[in-house]
């Protein structure tokens, strides 16, 4: 039915539509002319995570304020934001970032300052400054979730013994087959060192020495020919489901959604997980400053932050949020055991050191490219 309608539309309507659109675009560019519906653009990571944002925050926000939210997706990094700010052509209002990028961008003036004392307090009145977990807020951030990079496998690929430790990921003898990894040195180097016997608490100390870096790359060398590289967070669950790889590093929430919503036989190995957090920020110089601030305030309420945890297994970065997530909104699955912060998942875990990465990202990236190309 829908298809037929689309077919019947004569091409002339297309032309009219384009012209009208162009005229409207010109009008909105003029000062003093306001459009009926207000809107902002929020940029996040796509796939099932973006869907969680849509359900948990964007839709309720629109219902409450009448402000329309356009959702776009990207694969992280500061390049696009920097290009927009430097050319003065800002068309993203809110960006969802890894903490390392947020801190860097904040220092470079790419994001607007956010006063932590102006963010909504906890339901019991505790100030946001106290309510946030230690070190999880930046001078430019709002909202915030914990997420984790883990590795997962498809049970169909291993009928017999199943991998259970980070060492197993690097063990081609016991578990042969191709592995998926994100095409970036981040987390991969940490995984390599942990699998090589470095305790989580010493990983960044070791990485900080030239020998330690060599050691991490040597460990990656052992599986290099069996790695399939991914870039978008939505790829690993797909590659696992298609059995294109036997195991893959992934964001835990994506695997969770593949498990509960799509009933894929995927299993997460929490051993050696690299825990990280992110926040949203307002791009400097956005023309929709007022609305963006309103949105950031809304998304920083504990209830909003915890609501994400009802759609994907990411937990809020505030103390008062811990008790707020219960079951998955669509399937009723108990969320707690699937969260990266659940005690049984934290037995051997590493917290991502964004400060180390901000200092060493460029050099390590160069080294990583050299290594990839060899």
């Amino acid at each position, binding site marked *: 039915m829908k298809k037929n309608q689309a077919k019947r539309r004569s091409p002339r309507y297309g032309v009219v539509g384009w012209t009208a659109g162009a005229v409207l675009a010109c009008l909105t560019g003029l000062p003093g002319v306001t459009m009926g519906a207000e809107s902002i653009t929020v940029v996040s990571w796509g796939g099932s995570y973006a869907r969680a944002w849509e359900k948990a925050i964007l839709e309720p926000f629109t219902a409450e304020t009448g402000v329309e939210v356009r959702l776009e997706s990207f694969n992280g*990094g*500061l*390049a696009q934001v*920097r290009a927009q700010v430097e050319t003065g052509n800002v068309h993203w209002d809110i960006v969802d970032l890894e903490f390392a990028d947020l801190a*860097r*961008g*904040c*220092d*470079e*003036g790419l994001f607007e300052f956010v006063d932590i004392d102006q963010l909504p307090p906890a339901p019991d009145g505790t100030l946001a400054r106290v309510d946030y977990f230690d070190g999880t807020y930046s001078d430019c951030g709002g909202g915030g979730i914990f997420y984790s990079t883990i590795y997962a496998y498809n049970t169909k690929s291993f009928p017999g013994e199943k991998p259970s430790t980070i060492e197993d990921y690097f063990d081609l003898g016991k578990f042969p087959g191709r592995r998926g990894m994100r095409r970036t040195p981040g987390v991969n180097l940490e995984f390599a060192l942990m699998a090589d016997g470095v305790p989580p608490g010493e990983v960044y100390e070791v990485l900080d020495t030239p020998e330690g870096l*060599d050691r991490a*790359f040597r460990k990656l060398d052992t599986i290099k020919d069996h790695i399939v*590289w991914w870039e978008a967070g939505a790829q690993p669950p797909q590659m696992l489901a298609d059995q294109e790889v036997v195991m893959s590093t992934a964001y835990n929430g994506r695997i969770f959604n593949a498990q509960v919503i799509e009933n894929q036989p995927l299993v997460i190995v929490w051993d050696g997980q690299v825990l990280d957090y992110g926040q949203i920020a307002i791009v400097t110089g956005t023309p929709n400053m007022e609305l963006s601030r309103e949105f950031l305030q809304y998304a920083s309420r504990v209830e909003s932050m915890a609501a994400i945890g009802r759609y994907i297994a990411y937990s809020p970065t505030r103390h008062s949020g811990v008790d707020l997530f219960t079951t998955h909104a669509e399937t009723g699955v108990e969320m707690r055991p699937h969260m990266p912060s659940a005690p049984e998942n934290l037995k051997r875990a590493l917290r991502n050191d964004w*400060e180390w990465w*901000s*200092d*060493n990202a*460029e*050099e390590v*990236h*160069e*080294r990583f*490219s*050299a*290594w*990839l*190309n*060899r």
Partner: protein
Amino acid sequence: MAQSLRGARIRAAALTLPLVIFITVTFFVPLGSMLTRSFHSPQVADALPRTLALLEDWDGQSGPQEETFRTLGEEFRSLAKQRKLGGVATRINRLESGMRSTILKTARKLRRDQPESWREAMVAADEAWGEAGTWRALRRAGERFTLQHYLNALDLDRDDAGRIVTQPPERRIYLPLLWRTLVVSLAITVICLVLGYPVAYLIANSSPARSNLLLLLVLLPFWTSLLVRTTSWIVLLQNQGVVNDLLVAIGILGDDGRIAMVYNMTGTLIAMTQILLPFMILPLFAVMRTVSPQHLRAASSLGATFRQGFLRVYWPQTLPGVAAGSLLVFILSIGYYITPALVGGRTGQLISNMIAYHMQQSLNWGLAAALGVILLATVGLFYFVYDRLVGIEGMRFS
């Protein structure tokens, strides 16, 4: 008379003016500004003018004066207030990893208090300020004109004493990549020549109707979007793709023995050869069309075998086309970017992909520009050598 001639000349020149302006604005100016970036980086110098002036008289060995500490501290403070410090720190960090956090940490500590001894306060914030190497790095980052990007682009670096040294093998990226690019370009040129020469011959020596049809078959893909052709190759060559399926279906390959033909160097070679083939065939065809078939017949009537006739009569006459086609294909493939990016995977990337990475991801435009200059110089060198060997004058493109 002379005057009217000059008037005509001016009018003629005026007609080319729009083109000249267009090329200047859209080509020479951006190109020039990009090339300048490769050796001109004034950002740090502009951000820390007073400190750098003080460091000019410094001997580079002992710890600098208290005044230098104070000046730097104050400059950090005012930059942080303008939210410019992060960008400056990132630039300095490129010379010396770790400087970024050193600078930002120090600026955070110095934000409010007015210390009695700036030296002590800064060393307390980060020990690095007590080391002469940190200050040398700062001084080097403050150079307005620098060859650093070129050093990086050639896998070189400066050691602590300022001597130029080669990077350790695990850090060498660009020279191996440049070498790979040259080898691949040469291989593609040779493959194109081997595949294209007979095709061009066929087109040039068929009946007009058939020749037109064949020409259309060459031109059709030539007119098709580059992206469409590249992605079609992915469809054809991938693991579960048409070619592999076919080979499995007729039993040449087992289902677990599928050949990896894309996302590696093979993919880059196949796709680029197909895309660049018309650039070889068309100049060849243009030249072959003018070679009279009677020459070959004359040769054989004089007793030459086909081989002799071809090598001594036909081939020499087509050389201008061979030269033109080869040069076109070679130069185009040296700078090719989108096809290797899509089908090259890990091992099929070329130097231009690295330039794109520094343009779009790392945002190290200075390094991207230096790599671009080196690529340009390489092409220029080849052009020069080629000119000496073959002679650009004698080349024919159509």
